């Protein structure tokens, strides 16, 4: 379409070629331009909308994470630390957290297998786990850690075990959700400030 338009325009513009009359050229040109613009408009609109849609999706996921209590304010703090110089900061932190927490969880598993239970050690490990969970804003996990520590304090072995199982569940759920979240975020591409959900 553009080629035709340009050819036509050239014909019109070129005085040497008396192929068409000016009025005709102008009209054709105008039509072509309009068509082109429309085309481009729709194309870009489509792309933008798609992007917006993706980002919106990400936002939706994120909001749900907050609404359902999986994440808290601290996560937002982390996101605010992310910028052009640190484009994947949040994901980097979460990855560090996964690594560290896996180690702590297996440590807890081993310690819970002992008999009799070493509550002090359990408490120490859980304190650490709670600290890092709170650093990334893992709200539900953190709450379960608090409960676990309370059971440690009251030397309630059964309570500890139950709480630990629950905590592992919450941890697994959060991890899954975060993975989905990051995947979507990566697909949506770099967010512009305007699109950044708050």
């Amino acid at each position, binding site marked *: 379409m553009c080629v035709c338009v340009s050819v036509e325009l050239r014909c019109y513009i070129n005085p040497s070629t008396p192929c068409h009359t000016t009025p005709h050229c102008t009209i054709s040109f105008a039509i072509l331009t309009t068509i082109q613009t429309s085309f481009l408009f729709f194309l870009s609109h489509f792309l933008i909308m798609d992007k917006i849609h993706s980002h919106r999706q990400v936002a939706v996921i994120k909001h749900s994470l907050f609404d359902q209590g999986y994440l808290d304010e*601290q996560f937002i*703090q*982390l996101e*605010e*630390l992310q910028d052009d110089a*640190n484009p994947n*900061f949040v994901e*980097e*932190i979460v990855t*560090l*957290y996964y*690594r*560290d927490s896996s180690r702590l969880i297996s440590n807890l598993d081993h310690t819970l297998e002992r008999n009799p239970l070493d509550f002090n050690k359990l408490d*120490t490990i859980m*304190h*650490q786990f*709670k*600290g*890092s969970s*709170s*650093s*990334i*804003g893992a709200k539900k996990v953190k709450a379960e850690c608090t409960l676990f520590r309370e059971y440690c304090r009251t030397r309630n072995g059964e309570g500890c075990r139950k709480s630990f199982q629950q905590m592992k569940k919450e941890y697994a759920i959060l991890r899954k959700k975060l993975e989905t979240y990051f995947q979507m975020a990566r697909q949506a591409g770099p967010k512009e400030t305007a699109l950044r959900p708050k």
Partner: protein
Amino acid sequence: MNLGSGKGSTSSSPLKTGDVVSDKFPAGLRVMVVDDDPTCLRILERMLRACLYEVTKCKRAEVALSLLRENKNGFDIVLSDVHMPDMDGFKLLEHIGLEMDLPVIMMSADDGKSVVMKGVTHGACDYLIKPVRIEALKNIWQHVIRKRKNGLKDAEQSGSVEEGDRLLKGCDDGDYSSSVNEGKGSKKRRDEEEEGDERDDSSTLKKPRVVWSVELHQQFMAAVNQLGIDKAVPKKILELMNVPGLTRENVASHLQKYRLYLRRLSGVSQQQGNLTNSFINSQEATFGATSINGIDLQTLSVAGQLPAQSLAKLQAAALGRTTAKAGVSMPLSDQKNLFSFESPRLRFAEGSLHHLSNSKPMNLLHGIPTNMEPKQLVTLHQSNQTLGNLNMRVSTPAAQNNPLLMQMARSQPRGQMLSENADSHATRFPSSLVQPTVPNSISNGVLGNRITGSSNITSAYNTVPQNSSLLNFPINQTNEMSVGNFPLRSTPGITSIPTKAMFHEEGTSSITGPGGFVSSYDMFNELHHQKSHDWDLTSTGITYDSSQHANPLQGNIDVSPSVLVHQGFPCLQQQSVQTRDSNSIGKPLFCTGEAIHQSNLQNVSQHLNNLVDSSVRVKAETFPDPSSQINNLFSDQYGQEDLVTAFLKQQEGVGPSDHDLDFDGYSLDNIPV
């Protein structure tokens, strides 16, 4: 970037008197962040970078400490987590405060009141609850400015009460008994004022970070002891120390730290009045002071008898022990060397102990316990610092002592001490505890065993050895003393009695108190001859006040029932045994040390008396300046080196015979009552 970076200076100088801060400040603030949690560490680093600070992160406290030490002026502020696997955050805090005088902010997910209070008492500038928000980090620069300003102000102002007040405010106002605080406070004010007056050249805002090495601290402690806690003012200390390049400000700030440490110790000691074996063990572990301080101090503090000084001494002794051990294999000729090495330490310990006692016997103890956790034993440094911190905390004039102790602790091979201490800790502690009260005798005994053994500075040791012996005792305990010590422990009451008896015996001819210890140490055998020497010296000291001290000894023993008693007990026993035999030898020694020791003994007796008065449970009673006594002892020792030399010469001649006297067949239980 330093505060003064804006002005073009690249050194980490404090704000200049004009307080002209760089326009870029606080950007470029050099922060060291320590946290074992990698997630938190990374987040903090990112946050601090976002605040435009220069960040150095460390996963481990040891690494952080070595970095800080290597680069004393390379950092402006430290952020540390409380719960770390390799070193307790508070311990690190103390170390930093003592060695580098940097502001430290503690962080933890734990927001319990007790933990936060602990941060305050240990001297943290601030306490942040995790998860830390960036807003909280944006303002940490204020602590840097505040610290520098306070330092400058002290320098600038001349002896105004305000200055003293300001300094006082700077100290931990935590939990010291009012009496102690008042005592310390008044002393502090006076000193502060004097410091202010003397600091006419304090105009330089820059407070160069002086590395208070062990030697330097020992000199500091010696000077303080010589002057006496009450009279220890930076100017005089500086003159006595005669270290080129050292400024009054350096001394003053160090003195302040020491006082804070002592105050903290006394505060802690007040809280903990239980003498436990752990105390002893703790002693042994580190520095002697650290662990001991923590536990023993508490006990001591309870008794109110054991001033921080004693603890410090103990620590020093513990430190000395490590040295002593090394010296065990040393020939007599090397003894002197050891002695000199030890004595500075001892002095430190004594000084610190002294200070502690002066200001607040009990508090000191308390302060020490905090520092001295068994873990601390792990490293001498830790112990040293702890001790130092303890001393620092206690705002007693004896602040000086602590640094020495700490240094001493540091210098001591930790490993030895720690392991040894652990075992004989309990036993040793009593001896160390006893030291304050019967500074000469006990310390001599304890220290003497190890340290003195090698150095034969028995005479001089009266003051020092006692302490050292106590300290050494723990160290040696694992090896040898333990045997002796243990028996003692079992019978606190008995120990007191024996102590007394020993004393009396000493009065007659035997050096009961310290000697006993010494002998136990001598078990090492290598130091046998040395010990006997030490013994004599120690006994000399003891004899002086035998009657008077006997009671005090008891008191002391009571103070740290388990620890002191035991330690003192063995010493006493041994001494009595040895002294009898070595009376001839010791007598000449006595003469030399007599004059010196008597003054000390007097002090000791006072303390002992106090101890006696207190119940077995150490209560935080005002302990009549054991620290002063200790100081005296130290100073005496300081000046006793010559004596020691002379004595050693004597001993060498007499030596062989003395050796036999020592340890053989010592049964610590055979304390003549």
